[in-house]
Every structure is written in C-alpha cells, then in structure tokens.
C-alpha cells in the first residue's frame, strides 16, 4: 500500500482528463492522474503510482531504479502488482 510503483503513461482516456491508461510491469491499467493537473502527463511520461493514483512525475531512470528496488522486495512487490492486476478502476469512470 505504501509502495509507490512506477508506470508509463500509454494512453490518455478520452473524455476524462483525470484518467490515463498506464503500463506497469507488463500490466495495463487505468489510474487517476488528477493530482498531476498542474503539469498534465502525456503519453510516454513516467509516474509514481500509489493505490491507483499518480502522485509524482518521475524520469525514466528513476522509474527503472524504483522498479529494480521493488523487485528486490519479493513478495511485497508481487502482492502489490497482483493487487493492481485485479483493480478495475476504469469501471468507476463509466457513467
């Protein structure tokens, strides 16, 4: 829960400027990027994700280093990615 996971913005969700599809460790999921509104992310940007929300923009090198650190955490990391895999945030966005 406290683990920030780096993800790369793959697609901005049309019609909802708070949502973006990101790629995280091979998983594609919708996350909320509303907290980055002061500098809206574009496709290709890296963000640090906590519980489905992007909290900060980071550069690619930091993303790689953060991911490497997470992999070393073993079980805690796999649990977090598995939790993300099961997340269905996009269904909240639909009316």
């Amino acid at each position, binding site marked *: 829960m406290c683990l920030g996971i780096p993800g790369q913005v793959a697609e901005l969700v049309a019609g909802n400027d708070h949502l973006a599809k990101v790629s995280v460790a091979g998983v594609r999921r919708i996350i909320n990027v509303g907290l980055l509104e002061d500098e809206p992310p574009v496709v290709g940007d890296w963000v640090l994700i906590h519980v489905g929300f992007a909290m900060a923009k*980071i550069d690619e090198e930091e993303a790689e280093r953060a991911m490497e650190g997470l992999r070393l*955490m073993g079980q805690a990391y796999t649990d977090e990615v598995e939790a993300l895999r099961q*997340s269905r945030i996009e269904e909240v966005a639909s009316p």
Partner: protein
Amino acid sequence: MKFVDEYRDPVAARALVRRITELAGDGHFKFMEVCGGHTHTIYRHGIEHVLPESVELVHGPGCPVCVIPMGRVDDAISVAGQAGVIFTSFGDMMRVPGSQGNLLEAKARGADVRFVYSPLDALRLARDNPDRQVVFFAVGFETTAPSTALTLLKARADGVTNFSVFCNHVTIVPPIKAILESPDLRLDGFLGPGHVSTVVGNRPYRFVPARYGKPLVTAGFEPLDILAAVAMLLTQIHDGRCQVENQYTRCVRDEGNPRALAAIAQVFELRPHFEWRGLGFISQSALKLRPEFEPWDAEARFEIPGVRVADPKACQCGEVLKGVIKPWECKVFGTACTPQTPIGTCMVSSEGACAAYYNFGRLHREAAVTLGRAAQPAAAG
C-alpha cells in the same frame, strides 16, 4: 564489504562508506529512519553491516499498518460483521491482529471482507452492489490520504450513497515530534521519509532543526540513497549546520504536491487526538472526515464500539516503533511472533521493522557474526 558488491554502483557505495567513516571519526551517531520503506531497504541490503560501528540506524514509526491500535482493528471487524456490509481493505491490513483476531478470520466466520488495490475499487463495488453498504478501511499517511479524499469527492459528485470510509489516516509530523519529545531516545538526526514527502514536501520538517536542533535529510529508497543521506547528515554535523536537506530530489519537491495537499484539506480535518500503537495518544495526529462528508463517514453511519484495547503484554512493538529497542531484542521475536503468526503489527507488514528484520536482517546479522568469528583467527595469524 560483501553487501556493497550487490549495490547498483559499488564504487560509489564504497566512496560513500569511506566518507561516512571519516566524518563519523571516533564519535557515535544515532539516526532514525522514519519510513518503513527505508527500514526494509536497510535490512534487505545489509546496510547496518556496511556502515561503520560509529553510525547506528534506528527504526521509526513510519509504517501506517504498524501504528494502528488493536481497538481500531476491533472496530473494523465490528463494522464488517454488520448486516448488508461489504468491508474493503488494502491487503496489508487483513492480517493485523485485533483483540478478537484479524479481518481474514472475520471473513472466515462469514463477514463479507474483500481486499482492494485502491479506494476507487471500493467505490466501484458500491456502484455494482447498490443494495449493500460498502465500507473502505482507509489507512496510511499523506501518501494514501489524497487517494481517499479524491474517492470521497467522486462519491459525492456522483451521488453514491452506499459508500463510506472508516478513516484511520495519520499524519507524519506529529509522531516525529512525539519521538523528539520522548525521553527514551537520544537521536542525532533523521532520514526523512521518501514517498510521503512527494505529497507533503520538505517544508513541514523545518521544525526539526529549528526547534529541536536536529538535522533531517529526506532520502530515497535505494541503498545508495540511504548511504548518501547518512553522509549528508554527518556533513551537516561536521560543518556545524543543522537544516532540512533533500537527497531525494528525483521525486520530492520542497512544496510537495499542492493538489494532493489541497484534496486532503478539502475532505479531512484533524482529530483532536488519536491513539498510535506504542506511542499512545498523540494530539492532532490523524484525520477525520469533515462534517460535510458525514454521509460518507462510516463512524457516523455505523455503531462503532470504540473500545481501547491494550497491546498484548508480551509484544514490544511500541518500543520497536519508537526505536528504543531493535526487533531482535523483543522477547517474542522469531519465537511466538513470526510473519506467519504475528502477535504485533511490526511483524505483519512487509515494511514493519520486525518483518523486514525477520525476512532479511536476521540472516545478514548471523552471517556477519559468523564471518566475524571466522575472520578472527586469520587476523590473529
């Protein structure tokens, strides 16, 4: 230097250790890492064995799962057991023991307890189950509080009325202050938390040097980050400076994330006081929903027992959380209390000092002792 070879940049790591050793000289310096993520890195990478004996790292209260008192877990289980409720929680909280077992056991007894990745997943469950009451067990420092805040704003905007939050969000500054006020511990400085600082920034820590005369360096999560931050703390002391510095500029800005802070301020207000496991009641240290969000406040919607429960006598999580003792000094560590059968919270979360030490540090420490013993005859010869 066995562990250093495993670091991303062993040359830089060696240089930092040399610098730290020089700066520390004959002194003895005790620094607290506030954040559970740092504790994990320190044990995972054997940093305590890489540092010279003149520098000691003690673990702080920065694991939000670890600081939730038993009574609040009991309250959660009580709400989960009420008719028509779907109770949702982050996975980390599922195994935290209350006085009558944990949430997983409540689920086994028939309560509808589900684990979610995000509060938005809990909100989705509420939409999908309009005839049920969906409650989200909100825990965490300012790292996760903005997510809960935005989810509540979404619930209100969309008129979702069968969704509520059992709020246990805590704030990072009051426990640091409580530790600085504690007579138990003499500290020479702090490694400031990483991810929570992406939200709050570095400014809230200014009181640490200003009022208590201790330096604080916000640090990243790699072994090199920890070593660099320790070197920065020692440099400040060596130069006679005392200030807040940022080692983790890759992620943390001085002003934090203003939007996230604004979301927190819009939805939450400070509780007059909140009980922290091991630290007792700390005033203005936790968040509750503002009155205008009462329809989404589980504490207003449900009967909450709110009974204070003392920690098990054998458990010394409180002293571990304050850095007064190391995990292995607890009477039940590794015997009655293990990650499989945790008695205390510090053994539950992967970021808890006891679990991190049990999983990694223990082996490093044993290895170091063995290597130390093995090295003695050679050195003598």
